[in-house]
């Protein structure tokens, strides 16, 4: 019983942290105390936080390496925006349309996750890393060759051609224009939408982790053979964690895309996948609050470093290295633990520390 109340406590800290951060930022924005460039970053930060928390489910909790998380974001971004544009006439209410689009983005990304997971997750070994890496690249190239338009007769899809091949009617509109991506998006993502998506993500991930299924997932991360011997259906739980992770990335993709007027597939490339992996590793494997903070801070830093101009990425890299050294340093860690005492909320107390 004691342990349950302890995890419940640390979960509350995580929700509380997000809500307080939201309140503070809304207050600063209202009083005009925030630069416009930073204000523009609020929605991307939310999207990256969701990406990091969801990737943590695969990498930290399930213990499988995924190198193509941006691929799921891409699937969610493009399907979500297509849905949103197609539904424009049907659902004029923007927040509702946004919510439905995110659900559609999540469903499509979840299906992509299932398609990859079914063959790969039955195998032992690091096949998932290789396959997700390939998936990220393949999905990028597919969307680059994809043309989608809409008119009164419905959706038109064409592949490897050009937008003329869509045969749209008079009232038609090209949505995805191959390598040009989607342009003319009505930006309906707001910071509030982003925070709601973060809270929903936390609700799903934290509840999963603290459930019977979550314990089974962590058991199979710990020792697969032992997990099989006590009767845990290994493939089922791997699929569950991986598909949920992919679906949440899809919703984050929709959120992200609806914040820009133009979105192209190459935005969601290997670098983005690695960036998110960096958030997860720096925040701590299995540590949800860590992922949130790492994603937020590391998205803001490059923005703050604008004044360094050309040296921006250099300074960013140095910051990363310093943080990496600091978080893996035993002395620093024990100091941090003393300072933070009991309030270091980690969803999995049993995750190995360090590499």
């Amino acid at each position: 019983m004691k342990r349950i109340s302890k995890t419940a406590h640390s979960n509350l800290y995580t929700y509380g942290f997000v809500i307080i951060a939201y309140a503070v930022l809304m207050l600063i924005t209202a009083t005009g105390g925030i630069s416009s460039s930073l204000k523009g970053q609020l929605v991307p930060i939310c999207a990256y936080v969701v990406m990091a928390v969801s990737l943590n489910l695969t990498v930290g909790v399930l213990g499988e390496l995924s190198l193509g998380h941006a691929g799921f974001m891409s699937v969610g971004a493009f399907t979500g925006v297509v849905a949103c544009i197609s539904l424009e006439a049907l659902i004029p209410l923007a927040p509702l349309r946004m919510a439905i689009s995110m659900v559609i983005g999540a469903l499509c990304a979840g299906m992509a996750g299932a398609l990859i997971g079914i063959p790969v997750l039955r195998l032992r070994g690091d096949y998932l890393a290789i396959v997700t890496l390939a998936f990220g690249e393949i999905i990028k190239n597919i969307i680059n060759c994809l043309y989608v338009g809409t008119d009164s007769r419905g959706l038109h899809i064409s592949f490897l051609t050009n937008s003329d091949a869509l045969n749209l009617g008079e009232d038609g509109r090209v949505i995805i224009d191959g390598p040009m991506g989607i342009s003319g998006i009505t930006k309906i993502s707001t910071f509030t939408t982003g925070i709601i998506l973060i809270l929903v993500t936390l609700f799903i991930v934290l509840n999963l982790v603290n459930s019977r299924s979550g314990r089974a997932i962590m058991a199979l991360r710990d020792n697969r053979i032992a997990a099989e011997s006590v009767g845990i259906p290994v493939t089922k739980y791997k699929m569950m964690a991986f598909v949920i992770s992919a679906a949440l990335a899809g919703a984050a993709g929709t959120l992200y895309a609806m914040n820009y007027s133009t979105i192209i597939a190459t935005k969601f490339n290997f670098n983005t996948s690695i960036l998110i992996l960096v958030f997860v590793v720096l925040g701590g494997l299995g540590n949800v609050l860590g992922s949130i903070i790492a994603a937020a801070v590391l998205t803001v830093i490059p923005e703050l470093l604008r004044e360094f101009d050309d040296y921006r990425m250099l300074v960013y890299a140095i910051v990363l290295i310093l943080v990496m050294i600091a978080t893996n340093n035993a002395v620093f860690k024990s100091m941090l633990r003393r300072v933070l005492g009991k309030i270091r909320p980690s969803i999995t107390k049993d995750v190995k520390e360090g590499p």
Partner: protein
Amino acid sequence: MLKVDNINVYYGAIHAIKGVSLEVNEGEIVTLIGANGAGKSTVLKTISGLLRSKTGEIIFLDENICSLASHKIVERGLAQVPEGRRVFLQMTVQENLEMGAYTRRGNIKGTMEKVYAQFPRLLERRKQVAGTLSGGEQQMLVMGRALMSHPKLLMLDEPSMGLAPILVEQIFAIIQTLNKEGTSILLVEQNAQMALSIADRAYVLETGSIAVSGTGRELIESDNIRKAYLGG
């Protein structure tokens, strides 16, 4: 209660198990002995559904379990203690035991108390992380964990491996107690002397097929077995 009939198991092109048949009756201790690489672990993994046989059938409690998923087989009351002390390293002793009851619904307190009574050492170490237990304690933990699923038949893969003689005796005594309390046992062992001395019946596996079978006593007294497996 368990009847394995003519199974053939392959690792790719390697024909590891060649037409093995064996049987465990209710209440028995049956042992499967043989040299390294004879295929003992392979037989156990096939019974528990981790590997598939190309032929034959495996009947457990009148049901063909050949094509059942491994977690379904545990649910049916057939538990395996895998080779090499596979504890959940990052969980405590208590959490390990809780995971052992994964396939069961309802209250596990009673079973947990029984397991602790059987292994008082585990009770002392209840809150210790399993990765820091000694080898002997880890072996007790995996056995206790398997008992948490309430198995009717318990399969043990080399429970005495790497343990000091006194611990080996302890482990064998526990196996006998479990058996008296109603759990049937299929025991794979390198320590043929000990295994044969507690077994009702025994099978000797040689490069993938059963070479000899008989009662424990018959095999201990057989000259060939003594030469091959009991060191003279």
